């Protein structure tokens, strides 16, 4: 059986649409933005109709069912149904587009902004170019003490951080779903494994408000932890972050 041209065209469009969705959302794992998909589909529709109407017969076959629908007296019922459905669809689409929402406006954001070279916190000035974790040395010198420090860091984490960053440090804490952008997933190799401990110290002690402008401080809900934790506690919790995730901090020697 030969498929009518109009159906062919519609099928091609549906296949292309689904293919886009599957290719990006499933195979590549990064969804295709709906604004872009709309424009893509608009031009795909243009392309498909261009191909189908390039020849005179093709064009005639394509519009034949539509012509019949509008003109053929025997198709009165279908006609009436179609003439009701189409305005409804358009109306629904317009409603969808116009209905007010609570979405915040969209901002561009860099996730790991370049840190300053020094930092004012706890009433002191730290040189971030040379700052090191004072407890890191115990990892080799006194493993027992190091273990103890990590454990203390873990306690600090559970009391303060896990609500957002999760008890598995995967960014899926109980509050995470309410936040956008999401809390960082420390298990991911793209986060703390890429950073030096001094960077974490900067990010933890000054929190979201301490971010530079390009990192949209107004979008981060990270508290300014220097108001709640001591310097020691921050260093310990940093030890815990690396220890628990099995990552090691980026070492000195290479600067950005």
């Amino acid at each position, binding site marked *: 059986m030969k498929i009518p041209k109009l159906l062919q065209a519609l099928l091609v469009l549906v296949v292309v649409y689904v293919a886009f969705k599957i290719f990006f959302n499933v195979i590549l794992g*990064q969804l295709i*933005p709906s604004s872009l998909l709309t424009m893509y589909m608009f*031009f795909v529709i243009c*392309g*498909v109709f261009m*191909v189908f109407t390039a020849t005179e017969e093709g064009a005639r076959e394509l519009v034949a069912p539509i012509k019949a629908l509008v003109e053929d007296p025997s198709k009165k019922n279908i006609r009436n149904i179609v003439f009701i459905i189409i305005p409804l669809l358009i109306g629904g689409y317009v409603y969808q587009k116009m209905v007010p929402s609570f979405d915040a406006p*969209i901002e561009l954001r860099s996730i790991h902004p370049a840190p300053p070279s020094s930092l004012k916190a706890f009433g002191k000035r730290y040189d971030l170019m040379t700052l090191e974790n004072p407890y890191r040395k115990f990892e080799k010198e006194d493993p027992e003490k190091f273990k103890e420090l990590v454990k203390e860091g873990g306690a600090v984490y559970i009391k303060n951080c896990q609500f957002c960053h999760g008890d598995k440090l995967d960014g899926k804490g109980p509050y995470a779903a309410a936040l956008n952008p999401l809390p960082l997933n420390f298990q991911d190799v793209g986060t703390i494994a890429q950073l030096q401990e001094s960077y974490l110290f900067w990010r933890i002690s000054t929190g979201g408000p301490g971010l530079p402008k390009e990192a949209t401080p107004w979008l981060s809900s990270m508290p300014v932890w220097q108001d709640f934790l001591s310097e020691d506690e921050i260093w310990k919790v940093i030890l815990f972050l690396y220890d628990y995730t099995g990552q090691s901090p980026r070492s000195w020697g290479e600067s950005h």
Partner: protein
Amino acid sequence: MRLVLFMKKYRFILLAVFILTAMVQVFDLPLSETPLAGVQEVMASTEEAPPSAEKAAAPTEEGVDAAAVAYPPAPQLTEADYPQVKGVNGRVFIWLAAQLHLWFAAFVLAVPIFVFIIEAIGMATKNKKYDNMAYEFIKVSLTAYSVTAIFGGLLAFGLIIFYPDFFKYLASIFKESMIAYALIFFAESATLYIYYYGWKWLQGGFRKWVHLSLGLLLNAVGTTLMLLANSWVTFMMSPAGVDPKGAFLGDSWAVIHNFLWNPINLHRVIANIAYGGSVVGAYAAYKFLTSKTSEDRAHYDWMGYNANFIAIGALLPLPFAGYYLTAEIYAYSQQMGITLMGGVFAWLFIIQAVLIGALFLSANYYLWCGMGRSEGAVRYTKYLKYIAIAVVGAFLVWFTPHTLVLTNAELKSLGGPYHKYLGPLGIMPAKNTAVNIMILATFLSFMLYRRCNKVATVSWETSGNAAQVALFTAGIINILILGIYYGYFTNTVYKVAASIPQVCTTLAVIILSTVIDTLMYKGSKEVAPLKWGAVPDRAQYALFLLAVSFTWLMGLMGYVRSGIRQHWHVVDIMRDNSPDAFTPTLGFAANMVSAGTIIFMAIVIFIFWLAEISTKKTA
């Protein structure tokens, strides 16, 4: 035996591999050798010591003395220096007058270029048809000529009313060239009138040669006019021949020959031809739709086809000219370049992408519909869908913005604003790849169209076809590899480096396959006489879309060309302190362009109508 057959059928694959290797060897050496060193060479060779803004404007030894005695610096204006006329926004007035002047001027200057060529073809082929068509083209442009002058006058008038000090400053610097412009304008009018009204009189033998020479003279004069006007515009963008305070150093040639003059000249000449072709195409389409006899339909179909051919022919190299212009803007001032391609204007290029897509799609569609003129077309219609996939696919890449518009839910799902796979589609290597493929596909459409009605008689036809398929395959693979390699695997600094080998590849494919095609179809048989006029009305609307999109696109790009000066009359030298010095939003600009396009179209339709009634009278 089967193997031999198989080999015969798929020998194009072997050929493709061979050609690809050759291409890589010739064009992409940087890729096959040490990439970075090669790229740097390529980049260094494309930028011939661009003078920076200060250098261009820096006083020369001789100039210093001249400036000290003769010329004042550019005036520093305040808001009070800009007369306000109640109810009229000066900038809007200037904007529309300038844009309409430019549209008509582009049309009026372009038509003689291809009228000259068509007339020469008519002389060479002794085919009266060409001569008649050339005459009809020039007739259309004649009325437009006076409209051009009217809008030119309005523009000058508006500048004197609304921007008197700025106009005075420009006039003081371009004194000679403005006088020359007025004189040449008279020469242009005289030549045009003799050329047009003498058409019937100067026919046959030596007289025709005189007429053709007049056509050449007309083009020479017209181009000179445009080059002079261009220099005023480019002076405002890349001033030269003045000191940092704007005092003229006395060298008139230096101010004309400023840094962006030639890039703009090149871009405008090519764009004018494409534009002129598209407007004449719209004229033919309108006449086609309204003609009553089949002879008329055949004639205007043929005319529309030729106009479209001119438009597409000039459209194909246009992206490269635009690329060259942009590169030169960057070379002149990085700040201006970033203003152009980033920030507010970044989204303008998405609109531009949509319009260029509309141009390419409608040009292709016209060619496909035109295949209906031939009975031999059925052999090729099955390939159209592949061309469509290539054009639309390339267009989607061309259209993908660098900064994606994401809803908050999408932002959350992606984890950030950066898309791993779509992000690289937003930058230059992907765009270059897309535009090259789009050009190749359009060219392929054209080749198929040409072949429609022909049957090759040469013995090596299949080999020739295999060679062409191989050429296209290899070319596209090469372009893709270059695009992907430079788009995804190199540092930002080297991202533009792929463009040159890509352009070379495209040009090589176009030239080589044209040569093969010409040889292959030498002495070919016709399937049946071409049925001129046997084209659906749809195709004519494609021609209209071409003309409308082109007009709109020109208006939009005029806005950005002027907009990158930001709050400067003359960049870095004379600040615009009028209340309208701010950059208007894209939406506002689009509305202005739309209004201008509607006015332009209305006048053009009026001119077409005039051409029609004048024909009726003489008939």
